[in-house]
């Protein structure tokens, strides 16, 4: 009896030993052309929509365009090259930094001052970065060209959007683009299945290689195509946007009085499915970076 009891106690220890560490994503890139153009923009017409968990009727009284996918590594590398050449950003101590004019500081409890200064955009020595820099030029790592740009701060995301003629979406703009006007909880409809989006333990082909935390999927991956036998469901938002739920959280542009946090939407590959509901929010310090956080931009038609 005592021996059985001892074995029972030791079982978790053995189990831990069996929990193999995840392989680094960089070691096993899978390349897929999804056929979705990351340079594409979708028009979101002015009008009312139902916002948030409690379906608050909200009006956006202007048309705007939003990127069909999140910004890719290839797009961000191109931007870095152009922005460096134009002097909009610079490299200091292995970091790409850029000027930010600062937030209005109100001195609220827990509020931190975001002062006018050079703020980091990306760190060149970040092991999670999927970009290469040879001292002159940035490029995307092989196999990661059409994956979302991650490990980028809110400052880096904002800088990209503004340099390319747009800006980060407000939370309202982001949610309307994700949800449309029918009050659906997920960008593609009312239910979530593993074939709709990249989320924690959604059993996609990347999870089979690198473990449950998985890896980012190429932008527009969930478009009904089959990849190495993995059948996806075409899961655009009502306005034709891809990856508005899952894959990576997306920085939004709002700055709220009394808080220095920047908000993110959409849920990521590291979150359970319910976090992909369109009203779910996340936030962090604007210089936070993560392998699970990317962004997309908006612009006004004609800009």
């Amino acid at each position, binding site marked *: 009896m005592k021996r059985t009891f001892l074995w029972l106690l030791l079982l978790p220890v053995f189990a831990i030993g069996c929990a*193999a560490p995840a392989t680094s994503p960089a070691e096993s890139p899978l390349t897929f052309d999804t056929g979705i153009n990351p340079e594409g923009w979708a028009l979101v017409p002015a009008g009312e929509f139902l916002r948030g968990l409690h379906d608050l009727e909200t009006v956006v009284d202007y048309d705007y365009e939003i990127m069909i996918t999140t910004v890719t590594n290839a797009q961000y590398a191109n931007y870095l090259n152009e922005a460096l050449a134009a002097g909009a950003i610079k490299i200091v101590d292995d970091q790409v930094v850029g000027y930010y004019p600062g937030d209005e500081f109100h001195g609220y*409890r827990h509020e931190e001052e975001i002062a006018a200064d050079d703020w980091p955009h990306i760190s060149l020595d970040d092991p999670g970065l999927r970009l290469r820099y040879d001292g002159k030029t940035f490029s995307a790592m092989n196999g990661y060209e059409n994956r979302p740009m991650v490990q980028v701060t809110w400052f880096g995301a904002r800088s990209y959007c503004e340099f390319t003629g747009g800006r980060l979406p407000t939370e309202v703009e982001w949610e309307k683009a994700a949800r449309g006007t029918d009050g659906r909880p997920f960008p593609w409809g*009312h239910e979530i299945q593993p074939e709709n989006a990249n989320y924690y333990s959604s059993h996609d082909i990347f999870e089979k290689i690198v*473990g*449950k935390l998985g890896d980012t999927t190429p932008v527009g991956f969930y478009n009904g195509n089959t990849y190495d036998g993995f059948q996806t469901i075409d899961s655009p938002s009502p306005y034709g946007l891809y990856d508005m739920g899952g894959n990576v959280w997306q920085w939004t542009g709002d700055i709220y009085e009394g808080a220095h946090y920047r908000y993110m939407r959409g849920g990521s590959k590291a979150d359970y499915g*319910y976090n992909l509901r369109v009203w779910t929010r996340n936030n*962090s310090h604007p210089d*936070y970076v993560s392998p699970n956080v990317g962004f997309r931009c908006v612009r006004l038609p004609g800009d």
Partner: protein
Amino acid sequence: MLTKRFHFLFQSTKGLVLVAVAMISLVTALWGMLSGPMVEWGVTDAIVNLTGMDLVPAEREGRIILLYHTIAVTVVAIEVYLITGILPMRDHERTMINGTITVGYLTTMIFGLWFGYFGHNFVFHGLYLFGLSLVFFAGILLTIALWPFRKEYYVKDPAYAHTRRGVDLERLAFFTMAVATLGSALFGAVTGSFWGSGHEAFLAEDLIREPHKTTLQLAIIGHLHIMLTLIGVAIALIIGRWFDFKGPLHKIAMPFMIIGTLIITFGAWAVVPFETIAHYIIYGGSVLVLLSGLFLVIFAWRKLIRDGLAEKGIEKGNFVQGLKALLRDPLRFGSTWQMVFMNFNVSFVGIFVAVKLDEIFRVWPAREERIILTGHWHVLSAIIATIILFYYADLAGLKGRARQIFGWVLIIASDVAFGAATVFEMKRLFVSEAEQQPIVNMTMLLIEIGLALVLIILAVFMVWRLVDLFKRKGRWTAELAEEGLDTLPKSPISLTTPLGSNPKSEAEVQS
């Protein structure tokens, strides 16, 4: 004979606790299949298909609130049964309290879950609220019954904390807890009603980092924190009675518990008008309550060691003999050990997070901070549940090897799960997001193994009690007889306690 069994299950203290534990076990077993790894393994889909649950994504928050209330009021009912079982009060008071709360929690549970998970028949929502109201009404009855200033409840024995007049300070602590609970329940109920019966549901953990919270949101935050705290206070007092807590430590602990309970409750309510300073008030009250708990643990462990050594005929043992004596009864040891272990998982984590909030935790993304919040209160709730189980297993007559196995599996398995949950919550302190998967896998596995073992040992225990109910002369008949319920009703002014674990109340109460 069926009537007699019904009599046992719904009139005796032990039977009532058994039914409530069984109901929570069933709900935990079934609803525990709807989240975490169960989703990953496809178990959730199977359960949903099998039971016909309707899990509308937009209604997740509301469902969870219903589920929490369902389990919480059942735990409250168990504590009320134990309180009416160990404290002297009039028989008709005991009967009314137990009867009302039983109908209340069962109505809350059945119709709350029916409304939340199986379509939205609003009649059921009404019945759910009616059930909650009955539980509240039972609380009023309990508070009246606990009134500590009746002369018949005065204590003479100088070993127990009392005023000069003889007012039993322990009874006053129970009374204070009951009054505080009623007020704090109203604090949530009024807010919920004002908010359209809670139909605009939200989870408090989703409000973190909001610089501007509404009055109603603050009230809900205060309500949920103080309710769990008071459930903790109640179980500490109950366990104190189980150990016949007395002596110098009792005399310090009881005033601390009374004042601490009042201060914490005031602090939680003060979150609405004075959010900035409310935390400091709560810290002050917490120190007193935690110290009171510490004194109980010191008393209990000394008693366990003393009794254990006496059993072996040893007058003054060495360290090893003392340790063996302390650990010889895992049920009694476990109930107090969990109070100590709670500090590592809840109190210390809470203090650390509070002290380093802006420096560390508010640098992380909100979802990480949310994991700590939800993790620490889930652990606290589960620890309270295990303490109840230790006591109930003792009441249910678990003896010999079964007592050892049940007790130690409950201690070790639950602590492995709670410890792993704490590591999971705090993982960002020592591992980056990109490298976290091994630690996530390990901690999740330990949590699942620990909780699974707890549920298995609980299931075995419940099956034992279920089988017993089918026996003509099972334990249940003896328990019915012990509480004097196998005969005609007793005199309405009897002051005996059904659980008979309160020598103070039986032998030394003035009558």
